[in-house]
């Protein structure tokens, strides 16, 4: 069943707006608590304030955005569940995720300069995250290669699944190799968070806020993807109708005897 492309149900538009407002409010609260309310850390002092945004951004970039991207790709490749929706979802999620991966590297680098004394180190965690960003950019480039939409969806799905192999490498890099990067604060091997009190609540709020920002961006990006594909289809239909009209005229001109036939 099809719906007019310009129409977006009032309920859906309201949901997206509500998610956007919730994202803005929670993000503002995280910034306020993170910068002005929470105490400085015993070891990191004021630099701990960057921890309220850096791990939440990394969580969205690595696990959420790429998880949805890989899942959408698998569901598109699997014949039983194949639907253009999964391709659109994977594409939208990986594009938004690319912004968050770049931000993970930038915020991490800003934290690393005063902590480690360098903006960048060829450390296992940093290098594997940079590799993920390069693969995401490759995915986006692949999406823009012109051609049959189904072939494009297939090659992009395969590329996303290959790139997804890097996600567990990024996660376990701090365990498998000796790295400059600190170990997991919340999702560590003992599942025992090493952060407490107002600092823990602010970090949790940071996770909620950045996740809401991602969900809002994903919904809007998905809408854009749907509109673009629908317009591509409409343009193709228009071109085909014009071509058929031209073909009818040519046929009529080629056989003038047939014009008068009943």
């Amino acid at each position, binding site marked *: 069943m099809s719906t007019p492309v310009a129409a977006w149900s009032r309920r859906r538009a309201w949901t997206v707006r509500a998610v956007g407002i919730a994202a803005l409010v929670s993000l503002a609260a995280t910034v306020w608590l993170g910068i002005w309310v929470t105490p400085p850390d015993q070891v990191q002092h004021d630099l701990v304030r960057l921890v309220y945004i850096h791990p939440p951004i990394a969580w969205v970039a690595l696990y959420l955005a790429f998880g949805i991207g890989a899942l959408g790709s698998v569901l598109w490749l699997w014949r039983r569940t194949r639907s253009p929706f999964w391709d659109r979802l994977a594409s939208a999620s990986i594009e938004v995720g690319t912004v968050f991966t770049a931000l993970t590297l930038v915020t991490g680098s800003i934290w690393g300069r005063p902590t480690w004394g360098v903006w960048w180190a060829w450390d296992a965690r940093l290098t594997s995250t940079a590799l993920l960003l390069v693969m995401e950019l490759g995915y986006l480039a692949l999406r823009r290669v012109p051609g049959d939409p189904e072939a494009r969806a297939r090659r992009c799905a395969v590329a996303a699944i290959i790139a997804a192999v890097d996600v567990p490498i990024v996660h376990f890099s701090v365990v498998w190799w000796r790295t400059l990067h600190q170990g997991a604060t919340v999702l560590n091997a003992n599942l025992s968070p090493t952060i407490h009190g107002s600092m823990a609540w602010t970090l949790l709020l940071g996770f909620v806020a950045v996740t809401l920002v991602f969900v809002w961006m994903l919904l809007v990006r998905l809408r854009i993807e*749907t509109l673009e594909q629908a317009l591509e289809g409409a343009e193709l239909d228009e071109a085909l109708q014009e071509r058929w009209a031209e073909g009818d005229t040519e046929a009529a001109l080629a056989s003038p005897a047939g014009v008068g036939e009943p």
Partner: protein
Amino acid sequence: MSYIAAGYAAALVTMGLYAGLLLRRRRRLEALAERTGGDAP
């Protein structure tokens, strides 16, 4: 403190710019779709 300000500014400005870009692109496509009257899948 300047590193903290730089970190927060980088995150907020990038997210804000990308959100603005998304909204502009969506608005333009919706206007185009309304003119052409195409069908969404």
